């Protein structure tokens, strides 16, 4: 399967430099937010839905301020963010390690391929109740869910990229006295990095979805749990606060990821451009 995340900037104007470029950039980022806010306000006023099911943005903002002031919002976000980063980090380590081995070592590839190709297209969330039974209600089951959603895109991208490393580059390194394990770390890993990072970006979204969904289904804390509580206690404005916040967290993490990626790939032909 060819995994392809959204290129960060296809809009040519965004590559422009200088104040004009910055203004265009700001507009491009602001426009979808403004669009959503305006549509939200308009629908809320239209009377299509009640103020209970669709509170206007202003009301949600007030709730967010109140939740921020009493500290619940910060606590919930910190818990969720920690889980997202932990599950993404674990998925990166596991996915890249196994992916390099599967991409370069025939025996490992043959051993794991049937398992990986079975698990990849399955809806991992189906095992979430089982994960709760196994790991309990706390952080472990959320991290396991985020991990399960994040690891496969990373693993598959790593296998593909590692198996396509230019053989002459590997030979050059071998000829310059690199051990077999050294080739995996010093040559295959950096050469496969562009592909790995493409998969990792998809994996990051998987980790965010996995953790948040897990918190929504069964949890004791976190942003998703706050939303589920809002649903059960009919505090609808709280639900909107949680959704907006998880969207913001997703957006910021994705942007940070792209920044790190641009740094790591400064050497590559596509440079910091997205692809």
């Amino acid at each position, binding site marked *: 399967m060819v995994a392809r995340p959204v290129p960060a900037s296809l809009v040519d104007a965004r590559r422009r430099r200088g104040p004009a470029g910055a203004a265009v950039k700001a507009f491009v980022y602001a426009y979808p937010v403004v669009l959503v806010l305006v549509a939200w306000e308009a629908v809320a006023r239209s009377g299509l839905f009640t103020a209970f099911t669709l509170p206007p943005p202003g009301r949600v903002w007030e709730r967010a301020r109140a939740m921020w002031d009493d500290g619940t919002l910060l606590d919930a976000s910190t818990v969720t963010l920690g889980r997202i980063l932990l599950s993404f980090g674990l998925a990166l380590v596991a996915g890249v390690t196994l992916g390099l081995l599967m991409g370069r070592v025939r025996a490992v590839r043959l051993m794991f391929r049937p398992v990986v190709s079975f698990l990849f297209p399955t809806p991992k969330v189906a*095992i979430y109740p089982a994960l709760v039974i196994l790991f309990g209600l706390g952080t472990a089951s959320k991290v396991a869910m985020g991990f399960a959603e994040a690891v496969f895109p990373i693993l598959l991208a790593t296998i593909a990229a590692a198996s396509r490393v230019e053989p002459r580059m590997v030979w050059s390194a071998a000829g310059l006295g690199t051990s077999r394990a050294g080739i995996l770390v010093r040559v295959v890993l950096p050469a496969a990095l562009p592909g790995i990072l493409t998969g990792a970006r998809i994996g990051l979204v998987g980790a965010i979805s996995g953790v948040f969904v897990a918190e929504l289904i069964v949890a004791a804390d976190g942003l998703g749990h706050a939303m589920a509580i809002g649903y059960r206690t009919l505090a609808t404005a709280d*639900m909107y606060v949680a959704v907006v916040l998880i969207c913001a967290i*997703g957006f910021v993490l994705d942007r940070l990821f792209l920044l790190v990626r641009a740094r790591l790939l400064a050497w590559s032909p596509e440079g910091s451009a997205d692809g």
Partner: protein
Amino acid sequence: MATEPAGGAGTARGGPAALLPPAAGVALLLLVWEVAPRLGLVRPTSVPPFSEVLGEIGAVLTDPAFGSEVAGSAYRWGLGFALAVLIGVPLGVVMARSRLVRHAVEPVLTMSYPVPKVALTLILVLLFGAGTTSRVIIVVLACLIPIVIASFHGAGAVEPWLVWSARGLGGGRIGTLARVVLPAALPQILSGVRMAIGVSIFALMAAELMIRQSGIGAYLFTYYDHGDTLRVWATAAVIAAIGFLLDAVYVRAVRRGLPWLEGEI
């Protein structure tokens, strides 16, 4: 650690010996699943041994309640998936061919890409109730991004001379899109659709686990609430198998229906 001789010299090795490691991999996994609970490495009440889960799978498959929940979920999924293809493919193709549409849609795509669409489930339930509508919308939202992006990229990569020659031969703008751009973009669109299948099944499952009123997710959750661990694992295994089969059937169908297609889907 034995790294393969690079360049794949000798990758043509095959025969029965090549079947051994895959079988060994699967066998190892199942063995661990079987033995770990029996030796008490994990509590058998949390993870029942594989053989017991295998036996329970029969009970799940013959349960008429399970069948009807699967049918209900499949209907909602099919409806949402079809809608997403009908909206997403034309949108992506038009984006590639029209600057205006591209500039309007692209920022929205970029912003919404990292957003977990399933997070909207409970909001949609507030707005549209817990019935079919909100779940179909979730499926559409989950499918839309991969399909639009794949169609956009596929149509954007169509050689301009192909479009020019088609226009030169006297096709209208819309006709050219449908007859030339769409088929040329098909390989990419099909792989986007494959991604969408995976993502949307996840989204529907997650939504039904949250809504807990009907559907496979609700079925699964009922047994979780009853503390019937064995049934939970067996149901999860069946759902996993369904996801896998759906993907496999899709790939087969595309290969058979479009034999001219090259490369991976």
